[in-house]
């Protein structure tokens, strides 16, 4: 019989055996037989507290009610979300903490599992069929690994990124098997903080050890953020050549081309990606936008149609997706189809304010194109009324509305709408591109460029003025100016953040002020609700804590 000469786990790595009886397990699989087989495997480890979920929705319901230590999730969950999408939702909604082990179970390892950020990846994956013994080994190692990284993740949870980096450095003194993971985590934190130079050198350090695709991606991303679009595009291009199924590389390649002004190259990159992975909605949507700007209406139509088709049974579409397709039909002169699409949108979204607004705008444009000026004007009046009522003015609806105003001769209203839109997004290059394209399509290219430039410049000038005041030592003047600006451009995330920044700098120098600190908290909360991953927001949260600490206050 067998003689077991293998050093036990405990002896080789100092791990503690896990008491599985105390652990809460959740098994997510759409096949009943698989769930019961999983239960058997878990019970061979001694696990007794085992819950089952047959779908992503059921899993989320369970996670809302209680916390689990170990989650085993099948990648293929039948219709709807796959395991990776489910995991991303769970992480985004913080339904599991950093100590929870999430394992993806698959029949084979496919390219879908190449996930961009460590944070959104499962802790490990298991390939079916697997033995209970292997599951045991993996879980033991993961418990150790989690314990090793927990201090860093805890600090990240508290958005204390600077100390998280310090702890990374500390752990790096005895890295062992975690060396590469530590370097990667540190690089990702630097990216979060906007310290791209540091991130870049960390990725270069990893690449000097081994040429790994994700490290190349990281290097190229840090170059992109340093506005070095040409070199970034070269690297992304090479990643796609060496790893044709690394889908994220195509997205970044397109982004780099667009940023460098080569929209044709961007379109080709996304076309290749779409052929390889046809069902990814966000990519289809971006391809549609770029193709539309490139006047390739066929590709734009195909892309937007695919977005609606594949997104039909999910919560991934919005009225704007319908408006995008409708706009293509209007440009092609197919006005009936354009209006049918918006009728679908109103029906799908049950006449939500957003769908009514988009619907009226597109109908107005469609009537105008068809030569029915009277109906076009009636719809425009409706649209303007909805526009004033709508609190959030999502996406490009302002541009469509502006276009309707210009085309129906109300230049003043059109100009005002576009100006407001640009002022609220004064440094968003992508929005400027869309605006410029809109003007080009209605034959107002030069005039439009001027409107965009002037509107953007108003905010830039104001912002610069605040910076100059601060540099000259008038911190309070800078605060006042920016707080006024916030009142005027509430939607402008950059201004809101700069106002918060100015307040913090002022308090850092002049002392705590309850009223101002409340304003700063409000501004930061506003940004958090709009864009929780905003880099400057994350930096300012840290600064807020530092300033509060400086005056002995608990942040």
């Amino acid at each position: 019989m067998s003689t077991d000469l293998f050093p036990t786990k405990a002896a080789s790595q100092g791990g503690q055996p896990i008491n599985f009886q105390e652990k809460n397990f959740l098994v997510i699989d759409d096949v009943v037989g698989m769930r019961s087989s999983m239960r058997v495997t878990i019970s061979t480890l001694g696990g007794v507290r085992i819950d089952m979920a047959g779908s992503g929705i059921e899993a989320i319901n369970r996670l809302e009610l209680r916390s689990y230590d170990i989650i085993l999730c099948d990648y293929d969950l039948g219709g709807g979300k796959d395991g990776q999408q489910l995991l991303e939702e769970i992480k985004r909604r913080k339904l599991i903490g950093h100590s929870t082990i999430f394992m993806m179970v698959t029949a084979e390892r496919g390219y879908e599992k190449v996930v961009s950020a460590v944070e959104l990846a499962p802790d490990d994956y298991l390939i079916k069929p697997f033995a209970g013994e292997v599951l045991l080994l993996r879980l033991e190692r993961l418990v150790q690994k989690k314990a090793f990284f927990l201090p860093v993740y805890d600090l990240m949870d508290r958005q204390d990124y600077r100390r998280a980096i310090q702890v990374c450095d500390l752990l790096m003194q005895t890295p062992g098997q975690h060396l590469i993971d530590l370097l990667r985590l540190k690089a990702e934190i630097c990216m979060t903080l906007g310290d791209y130079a540091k991130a870049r050198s960390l990725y270069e350090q990893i690449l000097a050890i081994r040429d790994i695709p994700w490290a190349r991606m990281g290097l190229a991303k840090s170059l992109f953020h340093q506005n070095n679009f040409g070199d970034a595009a070269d690297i992304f291009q090479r990643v796609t050549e060496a790893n044709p199924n690394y889908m994220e590389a195509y997205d970044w390649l397109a982004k780099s081309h667009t940023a460098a002004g080569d929209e044709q190259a961007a379109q080709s990159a996304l076309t290749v990606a779409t052929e390889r992975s046809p069902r990814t909605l966000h990519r289809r949507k971006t391809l549609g936008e770029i193709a539309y700007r490139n006047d390739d209406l066929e590709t734009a139509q195909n892309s937007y149609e695919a977005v609606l088709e594949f997104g039909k049974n999910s919560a991934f579409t919005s009225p704007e997706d319908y408006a995008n397709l409708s706009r293509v039909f209007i440009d092609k002169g197919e006005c009936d189809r354009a209006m049918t699409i918006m009728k679908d949108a109103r029906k799908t979204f049950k006449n939500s304010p957003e769908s009514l607004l988009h619907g009226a705008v597109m109908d107005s444009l469609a009537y105008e194109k068809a030569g029915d000026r009277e109906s076009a004007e009636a719809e425009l009046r409706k649209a303007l009324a909805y526009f004033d009522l709508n609190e959030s003015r999502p996406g490009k609806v302002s541009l469509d509305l502006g276009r309707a105003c210009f085309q129906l001769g109300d230049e003043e209203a059109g100009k005002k709408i576009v100006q407001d839109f640009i002022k609220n997004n004064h440094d968003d290059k992508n929005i400027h591109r869309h605006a410029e394209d809109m003007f080009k399509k209605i034959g107002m290219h030069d005039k439009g460029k001027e409107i965009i430039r002037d509107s953007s410049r108003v905010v830039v000038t104001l912002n610069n003025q605040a910076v100059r005041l601060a540099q000259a030592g008038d911190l309070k003047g800078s605060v006042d100016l920016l707080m006024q600006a916030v009142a005027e451009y509430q939607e402008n995330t950059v201004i809101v953040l700069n106002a918060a920044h100015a307040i913090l700098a002022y308090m850092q120098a002049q002392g705590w002020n309850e009223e101002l600190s409340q304003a700063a908290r409000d501004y930061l909360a506003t940004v958090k609700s709009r864009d929780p991953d905003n880099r400057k927001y994350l930096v300012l949260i840290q600064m807020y804590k530092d300033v509060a600490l400086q005056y002995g206050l608990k942040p």
Partner: protein
Amino acid sequence: MTPADREPGPDPARELGAIDFTALFAAQIHDLKNLLFLLLGGLETLDQRTGIGPDGNARLALLKYNGQLINDKLIQMLSLYRFNRGAYPINLEYRPAADLIEEIFAEARPLLAAKSIAISSQVDPALCWFYDRDLAAGVLNNAIHNALNCARSKIRLSAAEEDGFLAIRVEDNGPGFPQEIIEHGGEVKSLDRSGGKTGLGLYFSSVCARLHRNGEKSGRIELTNGGSLGGAMFTLRLP
């Protein structure tokens, strides 16, 4: 009967001609692996029941062993298909070599009772390397399953760094590889002549090894006789 049933249907030969059989087989292998998971899971429940007796244990281990052989073949076919389609991203992760050895060892243990064979292993716990865990495990599990078939009483599993490569060895005290195999290394063509096997396993192993690249170096497999146990010695070298 509906009227449609009386119409002559479309020509089956033409219909079948339109099917992409490689893609179909790949999808079916996917399902087979799921079924195998259920089957092997069922054997685990038998394992837990008392009163099987020593003879029962040996037969159970043999069932598991055969299940693993099926799994090896499914992995090989599916992986080669994915390699061919460019749809298999090699995933080099920096891990202890011991992690891999432990898992291979743990998977082999339930099979040992079938043959009265002992396994030993040796690896420095501090030795870390870049490797694709799934590919390496596919290769090594296959090598262990071959060794289980050939060994008289002993198998040895080991990993060590040699000349800038991670060398992982599976050795046994059986009669050794046939001379033709030794002469031709991992070439699949030469294996068609040896014992009626397709040689898919060795071909798969050779491809997996070569997919591991580091600068100018790439991985390889080596088949030799002798070694520390005097029988066959399979070596996977990863740069």
